């Protein structure tokens, strides 16, 4: 067997477009071959990352979330101990509906009242009776409730649950009611908060944003959850809703005003640096200001640049690995 000479990356499909933009530019500007960036999801990527060291394992795992403790354990059990964590920026999560239809200004409570299985009415938890947005919030149009939200495989779903549903649950007071009902069991209360109605108002989308878009196009009432980058590429078909009166944009997310976003990472095997040609160069190239900075191509495509990019650059330059608490 002859030795592998290109960087091999796998993981998150959210990070994939950014990684491929970087990989392409890297291939153009360096003598190294263009890295291979596989998709398949954060979990699958990290799993392969933690499979072990060596040529027939990947060098970098992309992830739309931070690596978990339990995963690190398996990693180190397989000898993958020196892991460099690189945060490349943030992914904004936006709500959008069919262009030309009603425009929306949401709050977290609106979403909770629209989609939760049970809501608090007059001090009691009852089955969600709302059928139009107007029922949810008198300021909103009398449009039928129909939401296309990420399926349970997507990390975006977790963000949606944490930053929208749970927040709404607390805002509307339902959380306290549930805490009381569950005898102070926080876990149970949270679970109840994020339990969605099953009458077809909320539809899980397991596919990609293109599927959500198609669903909205064939169902004019639909409101979908998208990544910021996706929305920005499809402004001809979608109009974005505000959240707590903030219009989502690279700027408003970067500044932290717009609440719904999540960090994106990649993980790198230190042991592979120097062995796989171009690995470190690639990692450094990825977080260059010209690439991942505010004016770089990634931001242009929709990545919310990390305000602390310098720190990240240092981490790579110094090959700082994560401490694994064993």
């Amino acid at each position: 067997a002859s030795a592998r000479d290109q960087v091999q990356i796998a993981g998150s499909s959210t990070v994939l477009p950014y990684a491929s933009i970087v990989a392409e530019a890297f291939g153009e500007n360096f003598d190294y071959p263009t890295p291979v960036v596989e998709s398949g999801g954060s979990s699958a990527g990290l799993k392969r990352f933690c499979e072990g060291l060596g040529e027939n394992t990947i060098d970098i795992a992309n992830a739309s979330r931070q690596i978990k403790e339990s995963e690190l354990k398996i990693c180190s059990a397989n000898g993958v101990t020196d892991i460099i964590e690189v945060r490349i920026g943030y992914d904004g999560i936006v709500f959008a509906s069919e262009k030309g239809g009603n425009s929306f200004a949401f709050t977290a409570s609106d979403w909770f009242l629209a989609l939760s299985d049970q809501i608090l009415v007059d001090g009691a938890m009852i089955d969600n009776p709302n059928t139009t947005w107007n029922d949810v919030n008198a300021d909103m149009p009398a449009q039928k409730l129909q939401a296309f939200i990420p399926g349970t495989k997507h990390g975006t779903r977790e963000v949606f649950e944490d930053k929208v549903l749970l927040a709404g649950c607390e805002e509307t007071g339902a959380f306290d009611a549930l805490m009381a009902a569950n005898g102070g069991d926080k876990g149970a209360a949270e679970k109840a908060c994020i339990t969605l109605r099953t009458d077809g108002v909320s539809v899980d989308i397991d596919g990609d944003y293109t599927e959500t878009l198609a669903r909205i196009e064939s169902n004019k009432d639909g409101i979908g959850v998208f990544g910021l980058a996706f929305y920005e590429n499809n402004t001809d078909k979608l109009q974005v809703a505000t959240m707590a009166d903030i219009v989502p944009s690279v700027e408003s997310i970067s500044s932290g005003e717009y609440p719904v976003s999540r960090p994106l990472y990649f993980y790198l095997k230190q042991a592979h640096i120097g062995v796989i040609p171009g690995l470190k160069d690639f990692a450094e190239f990825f977080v260059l200001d010209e690439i991942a900075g505010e004016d770089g191509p990634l931001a242009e495509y929709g990545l919310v640049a990390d305000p602390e990019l310098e720190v990240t650059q240092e981490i790579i330059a110094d090959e700082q690995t994560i401490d694994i608490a064993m």
Partner: protein
Amino acid sequence: MSAFWLTITVLILSAFGAYAGRAQSLRVAGGDARKLHSLPKYYSSFVALGVLIPCLFVLVIWLFAQPKLIERGAEQMLNASSEPSLVMSDVRRVADGLGVAVAQGALSETEAHAPIENLRDVLGGVGVALGNEVTPDVLSAAQGMRAQEQRGNQFRMFAVLGLAALTLVFGLSRITPEFRARNAVERVVLALLITAASLAILTTVGIVLSMIFETRNFFGLHSWKDFFFGVKWAPNFRGDSELSILPLLWGTIYISLIALLVSVPIGLFAAIYLSEYAGPKTRGVAKPLLEILAGIPTIVYGLFALLTIGPLLLNTFGSGGLLGVEWMSGATAVLTAGLVMGIMLIPFVSSLSDDIINAVPQAMRDGSLGLGATKSETIRQVVIPAALPGIVGAILLAASRAIGETMIVVLGAGAIAKFSANPLDAMTTITTRIVSQLTGDGDFASPETLVAFALGLTLFVLTLGLNIIALYIVRKYREQYE
């Protein structure tokens, strides 16, 4: 001699063996091939195979074993502190690079064995990229490895060529007029056939092995009672998920059933028309055209379900639809996926059944027509029963395909698991959940991800059971009618 040229040499020797075997057989028969037990070509194949098989076997083993042995030696030489496989890949890269450099004339053979300055540039110059500067011990390990490789390759050459000569002489010496060369050659062929058939078992073992450990991990984290007997499928990022296979199983069965209800009648009637009514021209055109349906990527069918069939059904059965009923609340439904999947499966049923129906002897049809049966009576009562075992096979294949389909289900039937008898409800299948959980964002060591393996293994066992039953039924039926 490189492995490639060695293989070529062995091939040439075995071709020579073929020639010599033929000549020798004719010689021992005194020039009269009729005195031989077998045709001369069997003697020649006997000698050729006798050379080829052992030599290639030794060569392949050698190719696998030598690098392992040499690397182990080099590893000990290095007594590497960090991950040995990585250092070794560096060593291997340097060793290979030295070979390339010598081949391209950038280094002389003697230079390649001496310490080399700025090796990275030298190798870079011949197109071998190195990650960083080469440490002396890596270089010396690489050089040692190269030397050993060269020695090993020499041994390999002697061993293989020696074996080739030996087997050649032995093969030729076996040739007598009585020698049953055909039987010997056929035994080899039979062994190959058996090997091919056993591959199915190996694959099964592989599948089970590649899933069983993760499945065990899953059952370590999640209660098997909930998995097998729970009623809800609700994975959840914070853990504490309900992961029961039953609603998924229901969705799988329901969707496959609808797909079969679409594809079996259409496919079977199409097959009947093609083989019994259509002229050769129609058949020659229609059959391959239908077969294209099997080749359209499933993503296209998925989009077709999402963009065309789903909305169409919604406009019919949904609120404000053509029928004025409100049976359907979203475009995703069991029926959507079932219909589209059915279309995809048409050629599975039609093409295979057509071949099988076509093979029913004409005498069978004559017998029925001679009794005054119409063509359709003949088909329904004589031809189809005669072709039934094969048709059942085709349908099973279609059903198998339905169970394994993902894209159409994701885009057509949705991602929500539920028990419902309404075909206009969204549901999902085991296979799509396997894909979803495997490609999701959850913690890969969590039950939410590991459940994919348990689902896969359970589905495997279930279909195995179904197949055993199907085999039993087909057997019984066949015993009656053959």
